């Protein structure tokens, strides 16, 4: 069985409770949630509502403001395009994933919005100032990742949220790498939180979340059946149905509920501490290898992700060799071209990302493999 250190892309393995929840949903919830009043439909509807309640409880939200999406990209597209549908100015950070950068760029290129990019520094105060300096009278939204998917750097999102609150700007947070490893509460000033269900929340792939505090309207980018007000040709305005056209992924949603319960049961602090310890061990084991450069900066804080490069070895080549040795790590741009342009990593990086199931021993053995294969070696062939 390969050892998965690519948990920032999707966590694997999944907890037993998650796998059982999905299987049970496939067995029991055969009705279409929110559609029809027969027994099967009502059972599915009740199950989906219970998932909304669990997730709302975990993030300090109201159940009706929990929207189930296909993934974090889906949620971010709905939030960005929905909030900016009337135009205006938007600010994103220099560490954004393409799920933010591409919809933002698309709107800007079509001249529907104007866009600014705030530089992220190791020092939180400089990053906040960077956002502050870009705010204009017509700034409608700030969209930023809570933690970079490339380096794991945590952004000073509470301060950015406060800045947005003071200026009446909608703060849209990309929680893809932060949910499940740091505490996030909608009461902390996030207006719209977008999250992946299949990463730190341990749900199945094909699950995501958009959680709103209800303050900013989100114009739907998809219209269709919602199970209510069906005689009207207008999309319902109330969440969650306004943003949930079409049949829901009930096994996925039930897996996400179970995953969220799993995370709460273990405790986010414990999960963070476990994964952080593994990251530190990995770094420590490679400390005496000058060929390895870590993308970590002294004054910055990180979620448990370690991005690194190996001198004279292309990241994809290194990851391919690690894969052959039984270690799964992601290499390349990690779908974040803006971040790499800013970081100056023209060939991308190799990303080490443990989960709650990862073992320190495996991290040490991977470091041993890297040392053995790449230390003082001049014969690595880059294709």
């Amino acid at each position, binding site marked *: 069985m390969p050892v998965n250190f690519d948990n920032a892309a999707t966590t694997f393995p999944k907890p037993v409770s998650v796998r059982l929840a999905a299987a049970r949903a496939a067995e029991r919830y055969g009705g279409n*949630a*929110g559609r*029809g*009043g027969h027994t099967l439909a*009502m059972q599915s*509807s*009740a199950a989906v*509502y219970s998932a*909304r309640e669990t997730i709302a409880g975990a993030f300090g939200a109201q*159940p*009706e403001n929990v929207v189930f999406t296909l993934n974090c990209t889906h949620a971010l597209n709905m939030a960005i395009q929905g909030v900016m549908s009337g135009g205006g100015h938007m600010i994103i950070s220099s560490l954004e994933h393409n799920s933010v950068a591409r919809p933002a760029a698309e709107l800007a290129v079509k001249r529907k919005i104007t866009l600014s990019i705030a530089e992220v520094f190791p020092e939180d105060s400089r990053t906040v100032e960077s956002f502050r300096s870009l705010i204009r009278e017509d700034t409608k939204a700030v969209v930023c990742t809570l933690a970079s998917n490339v380096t794991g750097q945590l952004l000073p999102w509470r301060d950015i949220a406060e800045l947005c609150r003071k200026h009446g700007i909608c703060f849209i947070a990309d929680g893809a790498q932060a949910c499940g490893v740091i505490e996030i509460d909608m009461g902390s000033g996030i207006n719209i939180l977008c999250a992946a269900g299949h990463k730190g929340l341990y749900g199945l792939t094909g699950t995501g979340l958009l959680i709103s505090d209800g303050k900013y309207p989100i114009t739907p980018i998809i219209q269709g059946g*919602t*199970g*209510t*007000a*069906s*005689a*009207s040709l207008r999309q*319902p305005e*109330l969440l*969650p*149905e306004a943003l949930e056209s079409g049949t829901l992924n009930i096994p996925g949603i039930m897996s996400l509920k179970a995953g969220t319960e799993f995370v709460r049961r273990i405790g986010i602090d414990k999960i963070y501490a476990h994964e952080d310890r593994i990251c530190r061990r990995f770094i420590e084991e490679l400390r005496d290898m000058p060929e390895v450069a870590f993308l970590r900066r002294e004054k910055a804080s990180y979620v448990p992700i370690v991005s690194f490069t190996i001198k004279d070895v292309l990241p994809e080549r290194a990851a391919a060799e690690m894969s052959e040795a039984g270690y799964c790590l992601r290499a390349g741009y990690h779908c974040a071209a803006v971040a790499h342009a800013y970081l100056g990593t023209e060939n991308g990086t190799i990303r080490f990302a443990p989960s709650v199931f990862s073992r320190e021993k495996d991290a040490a053995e991977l470091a041993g493999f890297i040392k053995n294969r790449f230390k003082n070696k001049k014969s690595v062939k880059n294709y």
Partner: protein
Amino acid sequence: MKVCILEMPSYTYAVKGEKLLKARGYPCEIKRNEFTGSSGCGFSLAVRRSCREAERILERYSVPYKSSREEGG
């Protein structure tokens, strides 16, 4: 026994209203709308109390409803 039928904007709000009312001792259940009328299909809350009482609670907790009517006597 009077039954108040509150037409709800969605299943989600029907459950939210149901939980709120049941927690306050108001017997109620979610029903599929029988009269689809001009707005189309949807869900209602059947509350075994007067509409005035049920509406007051929903309004206090900002749970939206589309309409209400009393049945029985």
